[in-house]
């Protein structure tokens, strides 16, 4: 059975991939997908630590994270649809009129 450190390292790698995706991609839907990767990395950490400590709290917190991620994805995608209707593009660089 791999130790806790293996799972934490895997979770760190996933989080780094998600972060890279958010900075790197110029498409709001792919940015939202990268945020989902980050949330999943955190879920993995919670469940792994919960298992190590022998408690179900890790899974319960992961369950709440999933529910919140669902709510956030729904609202985020509604915003994406509205943004697309305004500018006909999914590139976040098109929405920089408030930048100086």
């Amino acid at each position, binding site marked *: 059975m791999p130790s806790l450190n293996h799972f934490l390292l895997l979770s760190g790698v996933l989080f780094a991939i998600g972060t890279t995706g958010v900075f790197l991609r110029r498409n709001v839907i792919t940015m939202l997908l990268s945020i*989902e990767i980050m949330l999943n990395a955190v879920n993995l950490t919670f469940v792994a630590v919960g298992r190590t400590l022998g408690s179900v709290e890790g899974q319960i917190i992961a369950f709440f994270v999933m529910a919140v991620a669902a709510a956030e994805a729904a609202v985020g995608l509604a915003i994406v649809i509205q943004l697309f209707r305004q500018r006909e593009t999914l590139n976040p660089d098109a929405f920089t009129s408030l930048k100086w």
Partner: protein
Amino acid sequence: MDVVLFYLFGAVTVGASLAVIGQRSPLRSVLWLIASFLGLSGLYVLLDSPFTAVTQIIVYAGAIMVLFLFVVMLVNRPREEALADHARNGLLAKGPRRSAAALAVAFLALVGWAIARTPERPIIAEAAVADHVSSVAQIGRELFTTHGFAFEVTSVLILVAMVGAVVLAKRVL
């Protein structure tokens, strides 16, 4: 055997996540993310958490990703234009992309160093602990007693998100 499965599922998850951020078409990214979730689900089963594994598939891979898929189909921009312009937007182009790549590597190095410094914490393979953690009855008990307030607040949160999503996606706000 568990170690082999861990590396297998871990490779699937990491590989699929890399494919998510590397694909030009958002539809393919969504499909790769579903594959990544299936890998994560396998990891949860390894961690004796079958309920979380199944919930991951039902909620994440089965509902949230369908939502993403619908929006990708509705918006219908098959390729991301920016990614093609390598001179300005290549992976290591000057500006935010280079800093992003550097930031990710620095974060990973930091996490790796921190983990390397901590002593090995083996996961107890005793049957009693594994049964306690994997028991759905136990999850239910704690969810509705210790975390009952958070549960009720989450349901209000989901209601708010539903109303918000319907309002935000209207043609005339």
